[in-house]
């Protein structure tokens, strides 16, 4: 499979090291390049030792929330009667994010090995890789890989002669951002609408089919074999304290070399954009960057000189999220960006709870009205106010995801909103012209 963008020499290739290798997705290639060594190593380890190693790596969830992976695994109850499951979140729907598909395309066995190690750690017997419906080519690809894995004894009974049994299946989504939320994904896996569940109980206790379940992102599982092979400490040391390892960052927008690159956590963001991403296109200046998918608060250009790790991002008031970085040049219309983001969340709101369902709809209508030149001065404040009315009050994080970028865009680029509104001759009138 061809690469969609050339790699950069400045990458630290841990989980993407097989990208570009001929037949990288075949079992033989994987075995010839150290594949399944980690899994075999775990046969000598106790479940607790595996979890401790993952904890030591300070690996955090690569889907967006950044929850410590080892800790998540440790929540799965031990010695329960009945099965425990693994679910892989390959829904990859956060705007700006396109990394998991590469990991499954180029190195599916790495993910499978990560899943098997997790299965060993929590005593799971079965798993599903949930992949968004739009990635049909990827599901077909994974299905052929799974078939090979079964045929060669790397899935099913007595895996690689270890006596360990595990079944793994692909599961397609059908077009719903919300199914990236773990409990909504589980509902979808059970053949229902992708509406999130009330938590607790968390999936570790009651997940897929109401059984204890480890649910992690594709990239998270893909990171596990190298951690086990080289040790948690080795992996942790690649990044910054509490922010172990490397990440796949999806660089998009107004840069010269957009692409997906693997870099250590803590790399300076401007360095990343300029040195790996080739700097701003057409000699333009940067205006802003959304650092980790469209649900993250936006950063002005002057706020981007920070390390890319979970904690530094949090300090800057935003998130590393899913690694979807979108860079915007000086000509970008931030009001239209705000509208486009809100349109997305309105489209994807599942409708379950009132603040998200009605809030995203209202905000989308209002932002569209502003863009159409029918905004009023009071609307500018109201955009922020309504977004804050969703924040922290919705049933699931989708409401927050819609609110956070909106609040930050209005706060940081208020004059652009005011300029739009100023085009409306009735902008200061009590009577608002409804578009």
């Amino acid at each position, binding site marked *: 499979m061809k690469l969609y963008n050339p790699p950069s020499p400045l990458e630290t290739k841990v989980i993407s090291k097989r990208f570009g290798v001929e037949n990288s997705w075949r079992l033989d290639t994987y075995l010839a390049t150290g594949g399944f060594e980690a899994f075999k190593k775990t046969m000598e380890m106790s479940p607790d030792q595996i979890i401790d190693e993952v904890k030591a790596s300070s690996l955090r969830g690569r889907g967006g929330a950044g929850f410590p992976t080892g800790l998540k695994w440790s929540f799965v109850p031990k010695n329960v009667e009945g099965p425990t499951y693994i679910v892989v979140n390959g829904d990859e729907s956060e705007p700006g994010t396109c990394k998991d598909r590469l990991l499954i395309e180029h190195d599916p066995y790495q993910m499978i090995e990560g899943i098997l190690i997790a299965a060993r750690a929590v005593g799971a017997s079965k798993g599903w890789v949930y992949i968004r419906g739009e990635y049909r080519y990827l599901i077909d690809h994974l299905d052929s890989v799974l078939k090979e894995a079964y045929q060669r004894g790397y899935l099913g009974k007595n895996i690689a002669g270890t006596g360990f049994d595990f079944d793994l299946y692909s599961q397609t989504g059908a077009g*719903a951002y919300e199914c990236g939320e773990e409990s909504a994904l589980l509902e979808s896996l059970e053949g229902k*609408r992708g509406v999130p569940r*009330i938590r607790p109980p968390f999936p570790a206790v009651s997940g897929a089919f109401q059984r204890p379940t480890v649910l992690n992102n594709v990239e998270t599982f893909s990171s596990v074999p190298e951690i086990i092979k080289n040790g948690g400490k080795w992996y942790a040391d690649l990044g910054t304290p509490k922010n172990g390892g490397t990440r796949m960052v999806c660089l998009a927008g107004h840069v010269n070399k957009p692409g997906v690159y693997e870099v250590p956590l803590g790399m300076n963001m401007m360095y990343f954009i300029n040195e790996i991403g080739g700097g701003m296109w057409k000699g333009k200046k940067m205006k802003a960057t959304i650092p980790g998918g469209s649900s993250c608060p936006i950063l002005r250009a002057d706020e981007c000189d920070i390390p890319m790790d979970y904690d530094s991002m949090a300090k800057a008031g935003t998130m590393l999220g899913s690694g979807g970085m979108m860079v915007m040049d000086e000509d970008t219309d931030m009001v239209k960006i705000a509208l486009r983001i809100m349109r997305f969340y*309105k*489209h*994807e*709101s*599942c*409708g*379950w*709870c*009132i*603040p998200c*369902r*009605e*809030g*995203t*709809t*209202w905000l989308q*209508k*209002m932002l569209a*009205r502003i863009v159409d030149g029918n905004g009023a001065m*009071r609307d500018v404040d*109201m955009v922020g106010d*309504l977004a804050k*009315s969703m924040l*922290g*009050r*919705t*049933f699931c994080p989708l409401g927050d995801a819609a609110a956070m970028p909106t609040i930050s865009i209005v706060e940081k680029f208020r004059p652009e909103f005011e300029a739009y509104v100023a085009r409306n001759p009735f902008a200061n009138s009590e009577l*608002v012209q*409804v578009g």
Partner: protein
Amino acid sequence: MSNMVKLTINETAVEAPAGTLLIDAAKLAGIEIPAFCYYEGMSLQAACRMCLVEIEKAPKLMAACVVPVAEGMIVRTESPAVVKARKTTLEFLLTNHPLDCPVCDKGGECELQDMVFKYGAGESRFTEVKQHVPEKQWSPVVFYDGPRCILCYRCVRVCNEGMGVGALGIVNRGVAAEIAPSHGDHLECDECGSCIDICPVGALTSGAYRYKTRPWEMEHVGTICTHCSNGCKTTLGVRNNEIVRGNNRDRSGVNGEFLCVKGRYAFDFNHHPERLQTPLLRVNGKLEEVSWSRALQAVVEKFKAGGKAGVVGSTRIANEEAYLLQKFARTVLKTNNIDHHRSGDVVTLLDSLSGKTATLGTADDCYNAKAVLIVGADLSQQQPFLANQIRANHRHHKAGIYVATPGAVREDKIAKASARTADGNWLPAVESMAEKLKGEKELLVLFGDSVKGEGVRKLVAFGESLGIPVKYICLVDYANSRGAMDMGLLPDLGPGYHAVEGAPGLTLPQMMAATDLDLLWVVGANPLARHTLASSKAFVVVQDLFLTETAQRADVVLPAASAYEKNGTVTNVCGQVQRLKRGVETVGAKTDLNIIGLIARGMGVNLGKVDADAVFAEIQKTVRGYNVPLPVIVTGGAAQTMPVNGRVPSTVLPELIQSSRDTLFTTGTLTRYSKILNEVMEAPGGLYR
């Protein structure tokens, strides 16, 4: 109690049992936490976000409907953050909710109105175009107005969890999400109207009620439904002496807020144009309208003349009327030829339980018993409230449900074991479950009319053999089927199941077959619908609401008041006595009690004071089991009759016992006169797949 949790809500110390949800704990302490989607007894949704409260140390506002109380928890339900959150949630709700309250049926009793009034903002900032979709009609009685819907999912849950029907779902996504019916554009369901009843706004409205009145223009009268035997309290909404609505929102009565299609809509027979309003007298072979005095005079003359008389009582008239009727028959007409349409073998059950205590089941037992066995009855069709209790018992208490029925029934879905019976031979099916039943802690057995006579004794013996406490409910058909028996509308047994003095009288079929009958007095029954009257010379007096088959054969027809037009008491299938309360005045008709009294007066007979309270006082004194506390009844409660607990010397063949096997949409003759029931009967009934 050791499992009590101490917490603080709004600076008030509150104690609640561990596991209590915060929203309920607050309620116990008299603190209201508003909510739309939270509904006691149903699954949790956390969707409306109205119940967000501040909990100390929580990073954000928490939904009180899903957070259990915890020791030392400090909660604020009226802090500025909470107040603002509620206000904006309501503001969000009103963005797409049409403000058509002036023409909305729910106006005046709308939870959204109340919430906005109490917690909402005085001003709306929404200036965009509202989302709109046209209103839809899903059945003769169910209309859905999507834009008014706030998606609290109560209707979906009451239909799925409550009724076990699952005829409502959620389609589409996001702001386009809406409720949808089971069959594309229409509903196939029980048509129970629970979805309408439970809707907090005017999204689901009733075809029977819509646009008829404003809620505040009605008087509300709580009485007992006159259809099946379950004895549901129905609160009649009465406007200008017309019943326009039936519901039970105040959850008074044994049934809480439950009502089936009949309880909710089938009061409309009361205003049917064919209701008799004038007495009829056969003159020259034709029934003619005459005055009350002339009609009564004709009856009195015949009654005085004597001869071989037969009396058929009703399964719908009040206890007082049934009691007085048999008293009249036995003391004035001096006959034991008195009977009614029997639908369950209560008599043999009472006899076989003689000497045992705590063996008669109640509606509460249906909800609380650890296990329930249903023998030979399609409960969801014939005993809708008891079926609802059992579903709730399964849902809330995980009760073990066992089913032995001739055909598939709704309870199969929740049953631990189901067996089909063949040719009325239910015993093998029941015995096949014996081992499982022995593993239960206790059992409630409900049985239909296929279990009668010796069968009842076999069933009780089977219950004995299980070695666990067993209670029984003998299912009967109509609102006062049980009372009719208790009051002694039987040829061999008087009030309280005492053997009659002298020889037992003729049974109903025997009366019909007797060629020498001189007089037949039918009060609120329609025996000629299934029997023929052999005696051509019989003078027939009929008291009824309508010109039934029997009334058409009558010589005198006296227009009777319906259950909704009288005071008195009825006894439900479980032996619970409840009060009928007059909701509307009669026009032309009189209560059966009144009519019996007038005939007695015409004959110069003293039956004592003929009013409902006085006759009930006599019943309390003289009828075994009926010495029930009056305050319970007069305050609208259900008083459990005492078990007879003694031998019942019955002589009657159990073959006479035959249920009408009504469905959800039928109840004997009355059904024909309910416009709504006839409309919704288009629905197939049975199991909805």
